[in-house]
């Protein structure tokens, strides 16, 4: 079945029957896995971490698909799980970390340069550093808007925050990033 024509209803129908559950979930993954991955990757930065978080997110989604009430799209529902999983991961990682956030930010450049799955230039590394200094939820808003070009209404559905608050959050994030670039300019 071509991915482009598979609707949420068709996927949910497949997921209801034990015989077609796996097929349904594979279709669901094919449709959304890439966007979910990039959403998670921008939060956790490293590929191995993103892979772990994404797999946990998909396993959770598969286990709890019967709880999906159809009040939102499957995509929105999956984004919520992915966001929560990413925040949980970062929270655990933050508790394990022995260094301060400033040290983490300073080390990020070295980590990215050593990462075989990152080939961005110096200015991209600075942008990633600037993002790590944002509060987590502000960073999520920035990523969803800037990189994923999500509408404020869709973001509101995913994050459960008003459109006005999201616009303000994005505005603050952009200003903080600009300030970081100005302050770190040589």
């Amino acid at each position, binding site marked *: 079945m071509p991915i482009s024509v598979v609707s949420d209803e068709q996927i*949910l129908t497949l*997921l*209801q*029957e*034990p015989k077609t*559950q*796996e097929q349904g*979930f*594979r279709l669901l*993954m*094919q449709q959304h*896995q*890439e966007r979910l*991955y*990039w959403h998670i*990757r*921008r939060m956790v930065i490293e*590929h191995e971490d993103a*892979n772990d978080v*994404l*797999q946990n997110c*998909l*396993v959770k989604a*598969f*286990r709890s*698909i*019967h709880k*999906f009430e159809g009040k939102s799209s499957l995509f929105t529902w999956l984004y919520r799980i992915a966001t929560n999983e990413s925040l949980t991961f970062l929270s655990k990682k933050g508790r394990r970390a022995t260094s301060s956030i400033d040290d983490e930010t300073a080390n990020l450049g070295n980590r*990215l340069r050593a990462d075989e*799955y*990152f*080939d*961005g*230039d110096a*200015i*991209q*590394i600075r*942008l*990633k550093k600037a993002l790590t200094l944002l509060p987590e939820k502000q960073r999520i808003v920035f990523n969803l*808007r*800037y*990189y994923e*070009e*999500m*509408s404020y209404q869709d973001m509101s559905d995913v994050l459960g925050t008003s459109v006005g608050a999201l616009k303000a959050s*994005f*505005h603050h994030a*952009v*200003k903080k*990033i*600009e300030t970081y*670039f100005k302050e770190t300019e040589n």
Partner: protein
Amino acid sequence: MNNQEDLRKELQSLSPFLELLKTEKEGFKTPENYFDTLADEVFWKMRTEPELTTVIPPRKYWRTQLEEGLKIFLQPRWALALASVLLILGTSIFFIRPFFQPRDAFAQLSQDEIHQYLMNHAQELDRETLVEITEQHHANAQIDPLLLPEGNIDQYLDEISNDLDPETLEKIF
């Protein structure tokens, strides 16, 4: 206006620098064929973690779940058990019920207690009730209660109390 155009205009007003930066590649990569093999990896993970493989109930509506629940009781073993329980309950209720009826309060009374009870509750009786008692249960009474002066009701009850049984007492009160 689509999201891309909407964002471009927003960035133009907020930060032309970030708008320009957006045209460059981000720098993140994935291993080769990562997305082609991801589904297999996820299913392998679920199969190797036993608690994850059996907890994926199909999406059911409450009516389906109710019907499936009721079907259990149609299986011979469960139907027999249910019938036995209902039979025991029904029989128990049949035998136990008489012990809980109000008349039991009078059934245990002796004749002396009936007499005492009548004397204590004489004020609750009117003359019409006494006539009724006389007609139905004390046909041989020598005294017509309707002719009794008000103060002599106690005396009348005193006289008939020896002839009243607990069943009659229950009907009076």
